């Protein structure tokens, strides 16, 4: 008996040494644990044994070795039942734990068992076994009641510290952490299932917890409100999340999405800009939550739906959408800067360029990016830069172009190649459209430079490429619809551009023909119609011109949209007709 007591003491000391050591390792604890489990279970030693098991499992959990932790916990529960002489006859952990807890109620072991139960809870949470957690939550109500007991124990601990085995982590802190993590994970799960979880989340946000976790609760409330179609309140929540934890980038991203929905472009651009600069900061992706702690909350937050809610696109994608928004919402110079940054980032050997691979990229294809940047440069009246970009695109695609593109019947195509839509992204048609768009932009550049002959040349090249596409004129479908629409628009724009250029060098007949064709290819083209009228006017067909003008009078050139590539829209880069002048002409005509 004396020997046993001394052994007990030496084990306790060993545990305390390990627990107070700076580097915690599950291996040494496991060794201690094994040596303890070698002796038959007894009530005297149970206190120590449970503490060692607790410490070992905390270390396991910290190293994400959840299976090992769970195994050890189950074994311990069975050992406890052996002590109590109780056999539930099952290996179901929740039954096991209930029985074990019942058997130790009122004894000194009760709080130790409770703390082990908490660890089991953590393991369930980490393994996303939420039903088990829910079962357990009834038991965890007991937890709160036993809080008082624990406080007593603490006082006790202070008195005779040498005899009591030290725990590496205060069980109450563990409970707090688990509570909020459970609230977050359950909130995310229910949110994806379409439930309203607002109250639970708000309750959780009031609990003591690390800032990052509180921020998550606000974020989830925001998402919930957004689902409930209350964007302003959602924005408030996001703002709260950001205030709680400034590194909560995903709140920023969600706000940008809400602004976009609210069509508040300026705010959206602002949000995107901040988001981008925050993403560029080091270590924003993994918030350095509680580095001093043993258990990181991220261990318990591994639910699929939560991570999808928390996901943020890569910095480059954010930069691209920022650039596009700027260009579309007439902040061209900013957009140009963004585009240039983007292209530079893509060209550099920097790690950001490579890291893009990891996430599924939302960036468009590189040539399209070049062309968008080119269009932005053109709008910013930097034709030389635009031409350089277009040259690159042409250089890389020109000798890959097919002689002829024959678009099959869309129905047949869909049947045949439904699986290969993504695979065949860079097919002949797409390359041809890129090259054609590059020529179109170059044509625009030359017309901006008033080099009409060159402009005609480039527009002609564009047209020559576009007529290589043959297709049956069937209804425009979703897949090919965009490509076909771009094709038609490019046709219309290039013909219009050539017509306008011809008009400038007084080759009115060609101009008239091209403008007419342009109107056929793309009936919505406004400048083509206005110039058609102008050419008619110059050809002294004033009545027709007036009719044409009248027709186009009401609708101005439509603003840019996101649905189509920027370069396939009317950029207002070419020579413009003064509407006042037109009106005057009409008035002249009117009386006569």
């Amino acid at each position, binding site marked *: 008996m004396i020997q046993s007591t001394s052994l007990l003491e030496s084990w306790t000391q060993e545990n305390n040494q390990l627990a107070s050591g700076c580097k915690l390792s599950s291996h040494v604890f496991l060794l201690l644990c094994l040596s303890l489990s070698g002796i038959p279970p007894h009530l005297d030693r149970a206190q120590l044994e449970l503490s060692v098991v607790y410490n070992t499992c905390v270390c396991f959990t910290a190293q994400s070795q959840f299976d090992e932790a769970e195994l050890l916990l189950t074994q311990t529960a069975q050992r406890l039942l052996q002590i109590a002489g109780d056999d539930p006859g099952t290996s179901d952990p929740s039954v096991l734990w209930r029985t074990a807890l019942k058997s130790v109620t009122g004894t000194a072991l009760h709080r130790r068992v409770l703390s082990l139960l908490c660890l089991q809870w953590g393991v369930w949470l980490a393994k996303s076994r939420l039903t088990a957690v829910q079962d357990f939550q009834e038991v965890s109500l007991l937890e709160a009641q036993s809080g008082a007991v624990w406080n007593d124990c603490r006082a006790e601990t202070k008195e005779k510290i040498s005899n009591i085995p030290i725990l590496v982590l205060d069980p109450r802190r563990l409970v707090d952490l688990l509570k909020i993590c459970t609230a977050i994970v359950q909130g995310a799960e229910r949110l994806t299932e379409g439930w309203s979880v607002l109250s639970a989340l708000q309750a959780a946000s009031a609990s003591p917890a690390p800032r990052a976790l509180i921020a998550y609760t606000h974020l989830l409330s925001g998402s919930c409100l957004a689902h409930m179609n209350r964007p302003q309140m959602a924005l408030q929540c996001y703002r709260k999340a950001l205030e709680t934890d400034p590194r909560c980038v995903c709140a920023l991203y969600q706000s940008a999405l809400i602004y976009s929905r609210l069509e508040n472009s300026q705010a959206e651009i602002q949000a995107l800009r901040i988001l981008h600069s925050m993403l560029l900061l080091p270590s924003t992706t993994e918030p350095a939550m509680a580095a001093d702690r043993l258990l990181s909350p991220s261990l318990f937050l591994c639910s699929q739906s939560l991570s999808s809610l928390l996901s943020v696109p890569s910095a480059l994608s954010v930069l691209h959408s920022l650039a596009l928004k700027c260009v579309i919402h007439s902040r061209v110079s900013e957009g140009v800067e963004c585009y240039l940054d983007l292209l530079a980032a893509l060209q550099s050997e920097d*790690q950001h360029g490579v890291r893009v691979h990891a996430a599924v990229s939302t*960036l468009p294809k590189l*040539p399209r990016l070049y062309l968008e940047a080119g269009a932005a440069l053109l709008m910013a009246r930097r034709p030389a830069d635009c031409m350089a970009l277009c040259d690159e695109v042409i250089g890389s695609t020109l000798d890959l172009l097919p002689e002829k593109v024959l678009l099959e019947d869309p129905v047949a195509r869909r049947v045949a190649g439904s699986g290969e839509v993504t695979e065949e992204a*860079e097919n002949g048609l797409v390359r041809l459209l890129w090259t054609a768009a590059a020529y179109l932009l170059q044509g625009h550049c030359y017309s901006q430079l008033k080099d009409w002959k060159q402009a005609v040349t480039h527009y002609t090249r564009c047209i020559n490429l576009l007529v290589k596409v043959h297709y049956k004129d069937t209804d425009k479908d979703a897949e090919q619809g965009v490509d076909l629409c771009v094709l038609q628009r490019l046709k219309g724009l290039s013909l219009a551009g050539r017509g306008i250029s011809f008009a400038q060098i007084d080759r009115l007949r060609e101009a008239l023909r091209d403008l007419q064709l342009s109107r056929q290819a793309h009936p919505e083209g406004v400048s083509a119609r206005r110039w058609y009228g102008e050419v008619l006017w110059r050809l002294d067909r004033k009545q027709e011109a007036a009719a044409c003008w009248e027709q186009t009078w009401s609708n101005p050139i439509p603003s840019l949209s996101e649905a189509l590539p920027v370069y396939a829209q009317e950029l207002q880069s070419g020579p413009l007709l003064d509407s006042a002048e037109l009106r005057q002409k009409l008035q002249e005509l009117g009386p006569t």
Partner: protein
Amino acid sequence: MGDRLENCCRCASNVCKSDLTFHLFGGQSFSHDAGSGPTELKISTECLVAVADRVSSLLVVGSVLLTLCRTDASWSLTLYQIQRTSQSDPCDLLASFSLPLVSPKVQSDTESRCVLVCVYPGDLMPASSPPHPPRSHYPLQPLLFRRLFGAEAALSKSPVVLCGLPDGRLSFLPLRIPGSRLRILHSLEQSVVFVGASAVMETDAGCAGCLIALGKQGRAVLIRAGRAGLEGGGGTRFTLGCVPGPVECACMDQSRVYYSTGSDLLMVDLWDGSSGTAGRQGDKEDEASRSNPAAFLTPISLNVSGVVALHQPARSSAGEVQLLSLSVRGRLQSIRLPVRTQEDSLSKGPSSQVGRSVGDILSAIGDICERASVLKTIIRSKNQILKQLNQVVNISFLLSNRSESDLKPVRCRGSVRWSRLLQRDSLNLTCVLENLSPFVLERGWTLSVTVLPLSCPLEAGGEASSVNYSFPFSGLGPGESVEVSLPVAAAGDASFPVTVTCSLLFSLWRFLGQEEATAPLDLQSACFSLPLNTLTVDWLHALRLSDPPAPARSSSSPADLLQGFISSRQLRCRGGQASRPEEYSARVRVSSELLRDALGLAPGSPRVSLLEWLLSEGCGGVKMERKGIKTDGSSSVICGSAPDNATVKLTVNVEEKTKPLVIVEVQVKSSSVAAVCGLHHAVLRRIQVHTLSLQVILKFLLKIYQSEFSRTCQVWEASSVGVSSGQTPPLLLRVYQQLRDGPLLIL
């Protein structure tokens, strides 16, 4: 010599250094003296850059380290950032790409390594690139680069990593394109050993116009850009070729590939000499080489064996090429190749080499011819065997599908004849196997005849023992027949009737021409049997005729006399009766109408014709061969001797008293009961066969007969043991005789 050795060692140290620094990424630099031999290097854990399992290849591109690992279900290419944040941490993982395995089973060998190389567009010179690009980095002709990897890769000027996998796939990954993934470029269908690039023409100025990949078994693919506008915007051309394998390792300089087969080091000049036309000139040769891949890529042997690794060749200013190789025994060799001038390749090459190659080709043709003829013979014989087996199967179906009563297309008929050999008379059965089927009975068939006496002599213990004869024959065409002869019974043997069962046996071993000696013991499995018909030889068949008036005592030979004496003596002892053996008789009465209608006998002289018919008719498939029945014209008595040498008299009487029913009576008389019974049975059987309508009566009659007979026999047996010698047997015999004499008439 010493100088050379030193040189080698210096090379060794260089290789070590470059390799290790390559692996450790600017860890400590190792300096040790030349010539001090290999040194063991200690690598601390601080040098750990990445932790990965089963890495089969790695490559550094710029500041990115790529590793290719095989996992259970896929190949995964992992990218690490080399610039570490702190010395102790492993590199940051940037991204990981995976390519599923084709089939896990095939790629079970973990030995095979992968090839990782990096290609980049030739117009892009990396800013900090050394004048010589590092190993496994190849600048590629921009046109080829665009065609292979697409506009996006060209636009981003991204380096592209090429992976050659052990399953033969050549896949690529553009490094700098967002959202790119591993895609397949080509499949070599054998383990990729080497991927390199070479300059096609002088105009390429440092960038390669041709990618080459070598497979383990020597398959090679050359990838070049097609002419612009040739086939819809110009594609890439994949030219397949072959070099003698196996390829252990390879390296290449500007235009030559050096590779080792393990036993020899070979050099392939891609664009020079005879093979160079494939590269230089138009597409005509190219088509030819594509259709006949072996036509190009002729390697030149360098006569170095055992090379397992090669380092990138270095070319001196004089044009000398120096190769560093590692032999299988761990020796590092420096190989200098002399400058090959144009004259060398033109003049020296042909005279010796062409002769040799022609000789080689001729001998190869001879070999192939021989092998082809052997194969042809084998195929022919197998076809023959198949044809014959087809016949066998046909015959088997033909014979096994019919029931017993059907007349089989292959059947036996028999005829019996008494013959005397070595003073012993014996009854010989000549069995004729007729093939009336349309199929040929080929070699491998055996006619098996089993002779089974219905009863047996008492001495044998009462059990009938069968005798089996088998007659192998080779080839029996449709309509042909084969005749075999076998003894059925010897004189004095009274165990008639005898059942002769014929069957056809087929033995696969005999069919295949193998003798029993080589045949395995398990003959059952290689043999099957098809039953044919069954023949019956009865007393009438075995009856030997003698002159009509001859009474029983006319036996002439002393042996017969003796036999007669002994049998009479026996009878006397048994019967204990009068000195003269008793005559037994049996009668069969048939209406003459029946004879006329059913048997078709002439009504004129029914007696003689009935006797003739009885003696000559082939009943039970067996005919009796007789020279002619010696009946003296009107006489209706035939005398003969039964097989047990008892004298037999067959008499035919016509009773006309009972008109209008004319009864023909056949009477059998003999001193031997067995003979009487047997003959009676035989006569009845003949008539029975032909007058099936009377079956019922006959059955009844036969039943009585048989039961009486068996009872008689039993009594006889009892008496012979000597239990009782009372008056019972004669009494029973009398009953039997009365029964025989009864007025049963077959109508």
